[in-house]
């Protein structure tokens, strides 16, 4: 749940079911969690799976400290980070990934993979992800491939001059 809440902070989505706690419901449509962030984080190729338990524990410790510092009451039904309101989750993630935070490498890696799950579906073959309507690629309007699984765009140019060339352009096409 904790890592789901982290991924949902990076690319937020709508709640999957009314009692969903890890997904805060801060945006319409599916977010990083539905896009497969946990699956990607747990993929051996990503190289971070072994550290996830520690990162979740540390995130909840940071959340507890954050709540104490900011006077937030956390219910005990869910991990501390999950119990934070969305804006508080965002503020904490911003601090953890900030340029001067000593643990930033770990949190940045977690954020990068959360993003990649949504923006590229890096845990899936892209053609399969698109065929199954992957929420991130669909949200971005990523075009589908040709039937052979390769992309081609036969129409690609306005086909007319649209600016004057630099006066110092040489025969090779570079500047003098």
């Amino acid at each position, binding site marked *: 749940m904790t890592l789901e809440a982290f991924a949902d902070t990076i690319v937020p989505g709508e709640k999957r079911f009314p009692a969903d706690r890890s997904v805060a419901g801060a945006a319409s449509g599916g977010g990083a969690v539905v896009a497969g962030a946990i699956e990607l984080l747990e993929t051996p190729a990503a190289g971070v799976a072994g550290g996830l338990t520690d990162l979740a524990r540390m995130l909840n410790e940071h959340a507890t400290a954050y709540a104490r510092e900011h006077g937030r009451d956390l219910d005990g039904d869910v991990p501390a980070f999950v119990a934070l309101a969305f804006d508080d989750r965002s503020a904490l993630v911003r601090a953890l990934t900030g340029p001067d935070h000593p643990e930033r490498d770990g949190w940045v*890696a977690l954020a990068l993979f959360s*993003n990649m799950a949504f923006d590229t579906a890096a845990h899936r073959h892209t053609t399969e992800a698109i065929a199954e309507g992957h929420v991130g690629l669909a949200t971005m309007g990523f075009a589908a491939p040709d039937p052979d699984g390769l992309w081609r765009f036969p*129409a690609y*140019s*306005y086909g007319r001059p649209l600016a004057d060339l630099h006066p110092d352009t040489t025969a090779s096409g570079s500047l003098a």
Partner: protein
Amino acid sequence: MTEPAGESFAVEQTDVLVVGSGFGGAITAYHLAAGGARVVVLERGPWLRSDEFEHDFMLGSSYTRIFDFVVGDGMALLGGNCVGGGSVVYFAAMPRVPSFVFERKGSIGRRMWPATIDRAALDPWYDRVEQALPVSRNDWNTVTYAGGLFAAACARAGHTANPVPAAVDNTLCTNCNWMMAGCRFDAKRSLLLNYLPGAIANGAEIRPLHEVQRIARTDDGGYRVHYNVIHDDDYRLTNGSGAIDAKIVVLAAGAGATPVILQRSEAELGAMPHAVGRYFSGNGERLNTAVIDEDKARDLLGVSRPDGSAFRANQVGKGPCVASWDRLDGSLPEYSRFSLEQLYFPPGFGTILAQVPGPDGPTWFGPEKKELLRRWQSWLTTFTMSEDDNEGEFGAPPPTGNAFRISQQMLGRGPIRYRPTENTLRGWAESDAQVKEIMERDGLATVLPWSNDVVGAYTVHPLASCRIGDDPATSALDDRHELRGHPGIFVTDGSAVPCALTVNPALTIAALAERAVPGIVRAARQRGVAVSYGASLP
């Protein structure tokens, strides 16, 4: 190709050992092999055929097998990791460097380039590379929608804009925009299509997944090059190690790796020149994402596509096609000169660092960022190449390679440290302002630069970490690319380039490698290698 040495254990021998198979390695390997030398090329990445270049973002596809993303302290480096090196993953924009760049003084108060090199001196070598790859000029019929829209926006703002020369065969290109995963259609003229097959035809041996770790000296004045064999899927693992003796070593492992190999070799080779691992330049690179207002694009620029839309073509194309060079004006003060190039980065690299204005300033994640992603097809990315201050430095080398690898492929943590100076920051600010002036005019788009808070600054063109020059205090190599104090070791990759170039550097790295070959041949002959210079182009 090689023979056992008469020592206590069998060490292979060759005439010339080339480290890396990108522009600096492939070009030297070709000429030396064609001239009759025994050449072995050690490449740390895999060797993929054209039909293995996949259109797929999945971890483990060609996209992550052949690409490296090394995050340092304040700077992240993107580069090739395969046979063919950067040429396999690059966007193939191939402009020549404007004349004023060769006169740059940077932070050292004297000309950074060797006195023997200026634009006129390099032009014949540019000619050769343009012919060999080949490079051709885009025209307005091959310029993509994104390039065209950028050109039209430049023109409307009173600027010129040029179709850029590129190593792309437009008769084969499908405008798929998967260039970073390798070109499936052989349209991109990588080294896999010219210099490398030429080298192989002349007897050069190319060994993929061989990562050079360090270099030692041999009793006969040559060098022993130690390597690890890298696992073909999980690059964190090694499948053994070995060594090869050579009379000449050509280091071309890339600006992010060459200085690391030399640093690690210092205990056995002796002191390195001060400039090894210093004066690193990220080519002054900077990215801005514009989100185009489709109606404004139609009304203000008069552009439309066959399907009736004005733009919505972020995904369509082949990397950079158009650049605006108005600020490449030698009369302007140093650090105020830059080019702006229209560019495409695929999702992932191309989306994560893009920012939206947040309540406390721009942000790169959260609900507003997701709204920005909904308009991804209307994004247009611009690429700044400016004059930075050579302010990067490499720390202590990691145990192996040039980074502590995190993922099985692609992602690692490296020893580079970069803190942009006021000069560099000023150039970025001036270019950001010009991008805004062009793209936000009359509401055409909204623009923000990418965040430097996540992985620091970033570069796809690392340079200058082992540079040529005339001053031994501030250059690691003489003007023949030989490592000072270590005769017989030459460096011919981007690390040899003295400074940021204000344009894409691949053509210049290649031209410098071509230029270095006669000197390497002479050095090889002095060491008893039967090799001549003068082969025709591959």
